[in-house]
Structures are given as structure tokens and as C-alpha cells.
């Protein structure tokens, strides 16, 4: 069966003062119906840019699709009109942004904002939209929805605002929900509620989820498959459990082992954390014909600095873009 979303050799270029840089550099991946995948990587690796490209929301005048295709149900979104993209954004692909306060309009009540989406995209009347808005608030577990529907965003806690954002994103029963760091600003107890909610909604509606995060724990909780990004490129992809058990790219391995993960039975023992030296390269260094991780990689050889490593399939389901993936 055709996957719901198929991204083929996508290249996104950003115009910067220093010139044009490929912020997404030859990215391909698929998302199946009802599937949940995660993008991970350090800050500035192009995770949000990938999401914005799918949404047709690249920064205007700065970013553009240079080549490649984004096939959604067979239709190429990179060739779609603005009007068609607006239509898809409202109805079929929704996004939850990182900062819930800035993405809600402060001068309208949350009820008005949800109802507005329902009227515009579902064609509901005033009354029906209002009733449905209250039902959605209930679905995202806002206590006392009949009363809270009249609240303004500032009257809600961060977690409640994020739940309102999810309600808005779900208002049109999207086929794909993109969540860009949906819980970064929230307490872990609230994060657990949001994850629980997303899992339930996915089970009920069959919505596919793309979650962007820097937290491996969150990936393990939420996704079946993960894609690791580094400097605009996919460096590893595979089933979450397999990648965590045996990463086949040195960067993924570093990302997992440098974090002090919480463990079930804590002992006196405490080892030094593994360090990945250095930092992510700036946009100006993207796109070179070499492994962009080579400056930080413990396994680097001459070859790594002289050509971009191709994506290699390992063990049937894992992909790694490393010259020495077999040895990792």
C-alpha cells in the first residue's frame, strides 16, 4: 500500500547573509497510516524546518524547496497552490507548535478559537461549532469544559494551553498531526498527561503522528520509528527499540549515551557521562561533500572527510549514513 506521506530527496534551501545553504539536504522518509514517528537531534539540525516544509510554511522569502517531492496521498505538496496548501493545513495535516502561549490568540477565548477552526474547515454552524468545541475540550481532558470554554489563554496553565492547542489541531480530524516539541515547556507530570492523551487519540482516530523532540525517553514512549537528523541530513532511521538497543551511527550512539537516563534500580555506582565533543555546525557548513559529523566523531577516518557517506541498510530495517556503519 502507498504510504500516507512520502518525502523524496527533499532539499530545502535557506538564504542567509553568507549565501544559500541546504537546511534540509536530500531527505527521504515515509509515514504510514496510523503510524507514529519521531525526529530527534540537537538544536539547529533541521527538525522544525522539516515540519514546516511539510506544512508549506517555510519562512517566506528565505526558504524554498530546491528539489524533491512531498507526496501526501499521492499529491505532490511542493507543487500545490497556496490555496490548496491552506486547505490541507486546516483539514488534513495539523501542527502543534512548541510555545502554546504565542500560538494562541490572546484576545479571543479558547472556545472562540476552537469554534472558529470548526466553522472555517468543517463548515459547522455557530451552535454546532460551540457544542463541538466543548466536546473537544472534554476530549483533551480540560476539567469543567463548559466553564473553561470562556477562558482566555492567560487564564490557563501552560499544560492547559497546550491541551487547547491539541484540541484545535484535532478539530478537523487531521490525517497527520505534527507535534514540534509539544511538551518541552511543561512539567513532567503534565507531559505524561499530554503523551497519554496523544496515544489515546491516535488509538481512537488512527491519526498518524510526527513528533519532534530532543528527548530520547519521549521518543521511546511515543514512537515506533525514529529518524535522527544531523546538520540537515538524516543520519539514522529505524524502529525505536532497535536503534536504542544498537545504534548504527556514531552520532545516534553519542546522543543516547551522553544522557543520564533515569534507571529503575539505582545503585551507588556513578560513571562519568560519555561526552560528544564539540557542537553542531552552523548553517554555513551544511551541504559539504563529507560527513558533517566528522569533526566530532570518535571513529573518523580520511574517507569520512572526503565524501558524504551514503545511506546503508543494515539488518533489514535500520538505515545509517556512515562509512563505517558495519563496525558500529
Amino acid at each position, binding site marked *: 500500500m502507498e504510504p500516507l506521506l512520502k518525502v523524496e530527496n527533499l532539499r530545502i534551501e535557506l538564504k542567509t547573509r553568507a549565501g544559500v545553504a541546504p537546511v534540509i539536504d536530500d531527505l527521504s522518509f515515509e509515514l504510514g497510516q496510523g503510524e507514529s514517528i519521531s525526529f530527534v537531534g540537537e538544536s539547529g539540525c533541521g527538525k522544525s524546518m522539516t515540519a514546516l516544509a511539510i506544512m508549506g510554511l517555510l519562512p517566506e522569502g528565505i526558504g524554498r524547496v530546491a528539489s524533491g517531492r512531498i507526496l501526501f496521498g499521492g499529491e505532490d505538496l511542493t507543487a500545490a497552490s497556496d490555496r490548496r496548501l491552506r486547505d490541507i493545513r486546516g483539514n488534513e495535516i495539523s501542527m502543534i507548535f512548541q510555545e502554546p502561549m504565542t500560538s494562541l490568540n490572546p484576545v479571543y477565548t479558547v472556545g472562540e478559537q476552537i469554534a472558529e477552526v470548526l466553522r472555517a474547515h468543517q463548515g459547522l454552524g455557530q451552535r454546532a461549532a460551540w457544542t463541538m468545541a466543548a466536546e473537544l475540550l472534554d476530549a483533551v481532558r480540560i476539567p469543567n469544559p463548559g466553564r473553561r470554554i470562556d477562558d482566555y489563554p492567560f487564564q490557563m496553565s501552560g499544560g*492547559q494551553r497546550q491541551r487547547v492547542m491539541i484540541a484545535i489541531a484535532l478539530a478537523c480530524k487531521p490525517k497527520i498531526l505534527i507535534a514540534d516539541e509539544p511538551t518541552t515547556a511543561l*512539567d513532567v*507530570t503534565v507531559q505524561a498527561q499530554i503523551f497519554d492523551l496523544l496515544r489515546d487519540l491516535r488509538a481512537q482516530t488512527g491519526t498518524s503522528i510526527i513528533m519532534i523532540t530532543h528527548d530520547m525517553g519521549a521518543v521511546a514512549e511515543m514512537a515506533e520509528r525514529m529518524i535522527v537528523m544531523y546538520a540537515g541530513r538524516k543520519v539514522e532511521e529505524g524502529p525505536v527499540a532497535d536503534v536504542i538497543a544498537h545504534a548504527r551511527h556514531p552520532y545516534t550512539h553519542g546522543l543516547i549515551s551522553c544522557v*543520564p537516563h533515569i534507571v529503575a*534500580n539505582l545503585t551507588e555506582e556513578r560513571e562519568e*557521562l560519555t561526552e560528544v565533543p564539540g557542537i553542531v555546525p552552523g548553517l554555513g557548513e551544511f551541504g559539504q561533500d563529507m560527513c558533517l559529523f566528522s569533526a566530532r566523531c570518535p571513529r573518523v577516518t580520511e574517507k569520512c572527510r572526503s565524501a558524504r557517506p551514503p545511506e546503508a541498510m543494515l539488518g533489514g530495517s535500520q538505515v545509517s549514513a556512515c562509512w563505517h556503519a558495519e563496525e558500529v
Partner: protein
Amino acid sequence: MMPELLDVRNLSVRFPVGRKGTGWGQTSYLTAVDDISFTVRKGETLAIVGESGSGKTTAALAIAQLVAGETSGEVVLDGQDIMPAGRDQLRAMRRKVQVIFQDPYSSLNPRKRAEEIVREPLDNLTNKPAREKREIVDRLFQAVGLRPEQKRLFPHQFSGGQRQRIGIARALSTQPEVIICDEPVSALDVAVQAQILNLLRRLQSEFGLTYIFISHDLGVVQHMCDSVAVMYMGKIVEHADRLALFNNPQHPYTAALLSAVPSIDPTLRDHSKRILIPGDPPDPLNLPAGCRFVSRCPVAQLHCRELVPELTGNGTEHLTACHLVDADLVSPMQAVREAE
């Protein structure tokens, strides 16, 4: 076991808040830290964890007398009460208690060179000759892993992790005994975070530093701490040593908090049933009369509404503020877990 270096007794901080609708001339107060007491042993790390707004930063900064609010209580450092300090005492106290802030971007003066930033506490708080200060700065640059030629650069010429290193060097300059680390790695990428956490631990053993370490990342806390204080709405609800707290949490809030951490460890994900605590914390201006966790507590009893639970170990070292915890140290959440 190390002797106690820091002894905080009955610390409270309240902020005057103007509230619409309150009468003319009336001030209401938000009590951000409400009568908390704890001790920290020399050379160890006390972690403070808890919900956003529970008072972690306020409590820690109150120790260094860096909060705007009205502070009361006693802070005893090495046997000396450092709270009612006069100007000279304040200078001496500042030398001994330093702070590393969360945001490596806004906490450094953008118009100063790295070496000036690191030297600043020496200029303000000591009367050391210029040469000695120069030597100290050189040593600190090396200790935190910055290169000598970077001394002349401005903050914007450094990466986030390097800026945090400058902040650490600055905090170390007066040879403090206590360093308050308020979310020192939260703004950093995981790879850089590991570098800074390793550095903090190395410096701790090298200089015998005592840390108060605030973080919302429980994996980081587990790695860094020797003991943990859990705060909820201005109160400490649990305080125990590292192993006791993580392996046998007593307070229902602590249990919920630990169970909520997403984990790559499948055993942790499968075996620990998640305890979801619905709702939000209460309004800090309108706190319940009894236990502050009562509105979200899965095992709350009727009397929890009226009766404030005291922080006590019932004769053990494991301190908890919950009516259902006694000297047996069987978590009240055990019953909930088994029932499911």
C-alpha cells in the same frame, strides 16, 4: 559521613502582589517558600526538584540573599548565621555562596570580555592585588576547559556551552563553599550538557564544593545528587538520600513525578505503572488548609483536607510530609499500584 555545612531553618519568602479587586491599601502576599528547613553536607549535592512555580529558585536564591521578596528564617553556613548580614558580612557571604544561572545567554554582560566577567566577583568582593587576580582567572579558564586566547572574547563569540563554562568560572573565582546551580544545563543540547555535568562533578571533587542543584530533569538529578528535596507549592514534601528517594519514594507526589519520566529503559516503562495526577496545582494565593497536594492526590483521605502534614522521618532519615507515611516506609502508593 561529612558534617553539615549548610543548615537552613524555617526559611520563608513572600512576595507582595497587587491583586485587582482588593481594597485600597491592602497588600496580599504570595508565599513562595513556606517555612522550609533542610541541611546539606559538605562536599555533597542537594538537588531540589518539583513542579514549575513550587519555589525551587526562590528558596535557593534566598540562601544567597538574592531574592526580591521578604525573607525570614535562619541560614547557617559552617556554624555561622549568614542571614542578618550587614554590608561587610554580606560581602563575605557572597564570597562563600555563588550562583550559576540557567540561561547562559542573558546572565553574562554582553559588553564585557570573558576575563572581566570571570574576574568580576574578585573585583567586587575581594581586595586581592591585580596580579593575583590575573593568575586566578588563568587557572579558572584552564579548570573549566576554556583556552587562554579566549579570555579576550565577548559572550556572543562563544557557544552556549562555552558561555556556561564562563558562568561556572565566574562562580568559582572567590573559592566559594556553596554553589547554587539553577537549571545549569537546561538550555543546552544533550551533548554539551554531558560536558558541563562532568565538569561540575570534577570541580566538586577537586575543590570540595557543596552544590544546591535545581533541575527538572530527573535523569540529570539522579546522576548528580547525593540527596534530594522535593518541593510542592512552597513546601518540602520529601527529603531523602539519593538511593532512598529514587528506589523507595514515599510521598504520593514524588511517586507520581518519578513515574511520569519518559524512559528508554523498557523495564522501567513496563513495570512501573504510571501514576497520573489529574488537574493542576492549586492557586498559590488561595492554598488549601490541609495538605497542599490533596486536590490531586490519588490516596487522599478526608482529614488531609484540614490537617497539615509535617515533614518528618518518624525516627528514620527519610523525611516525608504525608499523613499516610510512617516508620515502615511503605509507600502509600503501593496499594494503588497493587489494586490496578
